[in-house]
């Protein structure tokens, strides 16, 4: 080992350290950054209109976020395995319309059963996606882009041009959409419970860790004997089921359901997930981050009218956030890689 290489090594060690520091910062402070952004937007908006932060509007905001949050939770699991599910908006629509029409015909169905039905419809859709992806070896994006339209088309077939109004649905179900427990709407409680359960599953159960492993390195996962097929199917079924549950909550909250329920929602969900720090290449991220992403998106769209910014900006902001988030992740990744190469620069 010559002097020159020695000198080079010590220099590169420092660079490597910076590399991992940048990474640590982004990982550890992604949530913090989101919270700060949230706080800033809330503060500015509240300064313009103090009513933005009163109890009622915070409740409204969380209510609005609850369904996106539910879908983002499921999407996180799929994205962790290096997949994506673009069909969630259509699954939500399908489940919302089916449960609503079922309830309008059978008003006696209790709310929990309605939720199970929605969950089931979603799970079947998810299974369908998972099978096309895993068994058919169709790229997830193409497969779920296809089912996005297939499921939506099915809703239109069933619905025709019709809609189901609040007056058609049993009162008990609609009450559930607005009822509260300890001042907190049920919808938020349900979203919160699902979030917590999935968070624990992903961080504390072997099957959950397998999701990370599959996305982090499929090759290493194979060597470690992780059952890839089973896990990928699980991820898509879970994602579909949560979208189905989201459909039931959607019907309960809005009362009116037509065939376009949840149209275009997949973009909000994908945005929430990537903004929340879930890597689009899989392997890293948490549902809590995705939930923060969902809340951030909702806050932005609720803040726009208060700040008298055209509501039409919302979609553009969603797109910009997706691009910004994946570009940021990529730049950090490139920096780490570059510093690693320098670190290995001792060549033997």
């Amino acid at each position, binding site marked *: *080992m010559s002097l020159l290489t020695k000198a080079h*090594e010590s220099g*590169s060690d420092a660079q*490597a350290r910076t*590399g*991992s520091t940048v*990474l640590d910062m982004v*990982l550890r402070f992604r949530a913090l950054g989101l919270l700060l952004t949230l706080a800033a937007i809330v503060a500015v908006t509240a300064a313009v209109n103090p009513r933005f932060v009163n109890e009622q509007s915070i409740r409204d905001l969380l209510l609005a976020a609850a369904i996106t949050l539910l879908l983002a939770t499921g999407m996180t699991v799929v994205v962790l395995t290096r997949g994506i599910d673009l069909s969630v908006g259509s699954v939500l629509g399908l489940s919302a319309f089916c449960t609503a029409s079922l309830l309008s015909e059978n008003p006696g169905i209790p709310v929990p059963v309605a939720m199970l039905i929605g969950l089931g419809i979603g799970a079947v859709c998810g299974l369908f996606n998972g099978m096309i992806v895993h068994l058919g070896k169709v790229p997830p994006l193409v497969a779920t882009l296809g089912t996005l339209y297939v499921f939506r088309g099915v809703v239109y077939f069933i619905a025709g041009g019709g809609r189901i109004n609040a007056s058609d649905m049993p009162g008990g179900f609609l009450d559930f959409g607005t009822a509260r427990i300890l001042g907190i709407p049920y919808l938020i409680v349900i979203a919160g419970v699902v979030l917590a359960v999935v968070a*624990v599953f992903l*961080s*504390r*159960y*072997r099957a959950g*860790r*397998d999701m*990370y*492993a599959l*996305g*982090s*390195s499929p*090759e*290493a*996962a194979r*060597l*470690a*004997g*992780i059952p890839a097929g089973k896990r990928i199917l699980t991820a898509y079924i879970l994602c579909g089921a949560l979208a189905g549950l989201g459909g039931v909550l959607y019907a309960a909250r809005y009362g009116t359901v037509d065939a376009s329920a949840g149209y275009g929602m997949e973009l909000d969900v994908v945005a929430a997930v990537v903004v929340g720090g879930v*890597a689009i290449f899989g*392997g*890293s991220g948490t549902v809590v981050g995705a939930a923060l992403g969902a809340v951030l998106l909702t806050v932005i769209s609720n803040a726009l009218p208060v700040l008298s910014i055209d509501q039409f900006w919302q979609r553009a902001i969603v797109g910009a956030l997706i691009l910004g988030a994946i570009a940021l992740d990529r730049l950090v990744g490139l920096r*780490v890689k570059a*510093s*690693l*190469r*320098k*670190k*290995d*620069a*001792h*060549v*033997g």
Partner: protein
Amino acid sequence: MSGTGLDAESIPERQPVLRLSGASKSFGSVAALTDARIELYAGETHALVGENGAGKSTLIKILAGVHRPDSGTITVDGEVVEFSGTAEAKEAGIAVIYQEPTLFPDLTVAENIFMGRQPRGRFGMIDRDRMNRAAAALFEQLGVPMDPERQALGMSIADQQVVEIAKAISLDARVLIMDEPTAALSGAEVERLFTVTRALRDDGAAVLFISHRFDEVEALCERVTVMRDGAHVSTDLMSEVSIDQIVRRMVGRELGALFPKQEVQPRDVVLEVDGLTREGVYRDVSFSVRAGEIVALAGLVGAGRSEVVQGVFGVDPRDAGTVRVGGRALPPGNPRAAMRAGVALVPEDRRHQGLLLDLSIMRNATLTRRSRLARFGFLVGGAERREAEQWTARLQTRYGRLTDPAGTLSGGNQQKIVLAKWLATGPKVLIVDEPTRGIDIGTKAEVHRLMSSLAAEGVAVVMVSSELPEVLAMADRVLVMREGRLAGELSRAEATEESVMFLATGQEAA
């Protein structure tokens, strides 16, 4: 040379943990192993050495359950076993640490060790504390300070290998196979790896250590097995054999059916490379090549030879240095400029770098000439077909139809298509990287004859090759690389298998 000293192939009173005998393995028409054997005993560190292509990796992959041998038996504790996959080898207590570890970059060190086997507590939940403590205990046992909660992303190769070793211990591996683990390590890191390895050996594990570095083999191992051409040559106690003897056994090979280069009076310098550097890959490489000359770039795998020629051609960026062709400097990272200046590169990895396997033979053969063959911008009138027919005929390529996918050809004929693609450009500088790897003897001779006649026509040829007989037969000069640098230059007269090998491994000639 006494070869296999029975006295040394010893410790006969004990039963080997792992024994492979009479193993052979062929890939297509290429025999990777003919008669390989090895015996590993508990509590020993065993070195496996041999030239590139001697069959070491195939042997390891058979032991790891990646490949199934065509013939031969594996016994574990005296019982014959058959591995149908890596899981079974793992089950039998065989752990392999590859040169490039396979970790989950996004997960913590502890999780990497216990993936799929995480300790569970209440409600079947993963008990992270217990897992981290268990990982910490493993590192303590290894005597390496490492944070179990640290993410694997950004870890050095050395640290990653330590994690792999910890994983192997946690699996109660009794046989630890390490495939060139030190290739990417610095001096201090190698020392640490050795400490860990010795500790394992003292605990009763059998360690198989594959390395090209004889100082390491000498420092670490008690016994050494030499392989050559897919067969076992000798097994000796390290104390009873000299490095000099080992090297001789590694290279002692017949020149056989090689076609020596014809004598050509070298003309003007065509290619000048000066101070070429790419951080972490190669450093300060300078050489020049004259028209009519064949210059070989020899060295061990990982010495940076392919990377240097790719830097010269411009497929990879370079950090410093200049490349001149016919006196004119080439811009860095621009293969098109290199091609315009008359440089051609026949890459090392035919399937990944050389060919479009699912496109037709014709498209492959004419890809580099696509613009030249166009008339008024259009590729019409069968110009590509004529060109492809002409070159495949000239190189005596055997194929079904020109429209068949290139992937359907045999290795030798695939190589001819890659050669055709580049010879069609009429290069002034032809760089060939492992031009005869994995192709049959007959085609080998044809390729050698071709290179020789090209040199005679005034082409400057740079040949990267790991096959010493090929280097010695073909090259006017031999540049030997070691660890990213030029270790020395040998003239045709000076170059022998020993002299090249000593430069490549950094051993002083005995």
